């Protein structure tokens, strides 16, 4: 790690002005950034601590919830309104990392975390287009069990590691941003971008912008009848091979609303819009769930080490929807 200056932002204006400096980075809990700085994957001249900014939940008039970007992952998971109205979000958070890390990590930082592709971290020993554009990708012919099956490119097949973001994508959450040109909101599902030829670009965040809050839309029945299932190599404290955040509303045996997002399969939390559309109006049966999952995965492009993820994703989607349909019946 190179020498750096540390500033504590006391309010948003201070965070924006300090964060605008060349070489400045915002730091929330630091659970990913400190490691990246230490490994020389990233560098910074200044760190601006935003962990003391808004960290609460506000209910808006229409029933939406505004979650401050500095709220800790553990606090969000345990919040009664989240547990009651958006169980898939609590479940996703509780499936992520360890208790210690959830206590440190902020909501904004969780969204901004970087891939855990081992080649991305191996500064001295591996090529990585994300770390160093146009240098090559050693994951492509290497150990790619954990890599993408959807939306990858010849340049990069890294996955986004967040569990929380998968639930936020399924919930159609909005990301509130503030920057030198004012405030705007971006749907979480559009906040991260696919790698294409420029895998070093990971989000639509502009220079000098920061995440200030997440907006959870007013809860619908499918958001409340919801679940998060994570399949991983050990039963706790591991990143997802495949994860599914899903919500289901069944009215008189027919699917009124299905919400599905996948984790561990792409450079972004993958909202399964094709599967959702395929299910609308159909009877809530296992056969229909499997067919819709199949539909979503038709464009999957697995690598040598992760072909199993296609079938795993299909079966996990169907299993979660079946479980949600059963609980409703």
């Amino acid at each position, binding site marked *: *790690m190179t*020498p*750096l*200056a*540390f500033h*504590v932002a006391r309010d948003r204006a201070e965070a924006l002005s300090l964060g605008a400096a060349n070489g400045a980075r915002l*730091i929330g*809990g*630091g*659970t990913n950034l*400190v*490691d990246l700085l*230490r490994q020389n994957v990233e560098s910074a001249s200044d*760190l601006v*601590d935003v*962990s003391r900014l808004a960290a609460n939940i506000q209910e808006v008039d229409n029933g939406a919830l505004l979650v401050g970007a500095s709220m800790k992952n*553990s606090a969000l*998971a*345990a919040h*009664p309104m989240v*547990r*009651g109205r958006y*169980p898939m979000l*609590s*479940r996703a958070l*509780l*499936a992520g*990392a*360890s*208790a*210690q*890390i959830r*206590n*440190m990590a902020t909501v904004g930082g969780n969204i901004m975390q970087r891939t855990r592709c081992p080649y991305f971290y191996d500064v001295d020993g591996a090529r990585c287009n994300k770390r160093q554009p146009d240098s090559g990708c050693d994951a492509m012919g290497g150990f790619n069990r954990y890599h993408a099956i959807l939306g990858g490119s010849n340049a990069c097949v890294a996955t986004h590691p967040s569990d929380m973001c998968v639930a936020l994508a399924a919930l159609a959450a909005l990301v509130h941003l503030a920057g030198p040109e004012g405030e705007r909101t971006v749907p979480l599902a559009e906040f991260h971008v696919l790698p294409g030829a420029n895998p070093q670009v990971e989000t639509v965040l502009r220079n000098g912008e920061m995440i200030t809050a997440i907006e959870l839309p007013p809860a619908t029945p499918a958001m409340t009848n919801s679940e998060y299932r994570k399949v991983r190599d050990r*039963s*706790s*404290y591991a990143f997802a091979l495949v994860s599914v955040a899903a919500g289901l509303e069944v009215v008189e045996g027919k699917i009124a609303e299905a919400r599905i997002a996948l984790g561990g399969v792409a450079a972004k939390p993958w909202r399964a819009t094709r599967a959702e559309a395929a299910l609308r109006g159909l009877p809530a049966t296992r056969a229909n769930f499997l067919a819709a999952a199949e539909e979503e995965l038709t464009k999957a492009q697995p690598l040598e080490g992760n072909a199993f993820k296609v079938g795993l994703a299909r079966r996990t989607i169907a299993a979660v929807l079946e479980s949600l349909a059963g609980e409703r019946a």
Partner: protein
Amino acid sequence: MTITINGSDYPVPLDSRVSLLDMLRERLGLTGTKLGCNQGACGACTVLLDGERVLSCLTLAAQAEGRDVLTIEGLQGADGSLHPLQKAFIEHDGLQCGYCTPGQICSAIAMARELRRGDPSHVTANLAAGPEGPTREEIRERMSGNLCRCGAHNGIVEAIEEMLGGEPA
């Protein structure tokens, strides 16, 4: 610009790169907190920050400015007596080499508080109602951030069960 550690105030290191873990071990000689992986994978460096468990290896000391840190050294009684959980670890053979032990103990003490507060975990069946109690399954899931390479996990869980069983509800 100070950090309170086990009840005493210490200045924040001038070099902003210093982790809370390095501050404890290298600058203050509080070597009870252990350096394991130094990248957030093992839990050996667990301390309590304002009462909640965190990894001191991934916490920059500067981030702890104005906050209250409790380490394994701060757990003993004024007369030097062991914390009940430390005694339970000895009683149940909750260690072999002992390297992960301070982290395990700090982690378990904070976990007890989370359970009392009714915080759910990944294995809690009823999310809204919260945990049914300190079951083995709950303890194992909640302690998954602390690895023990000697394989003393069974003894660790038993020691924690004893502590939780002995606590008033």
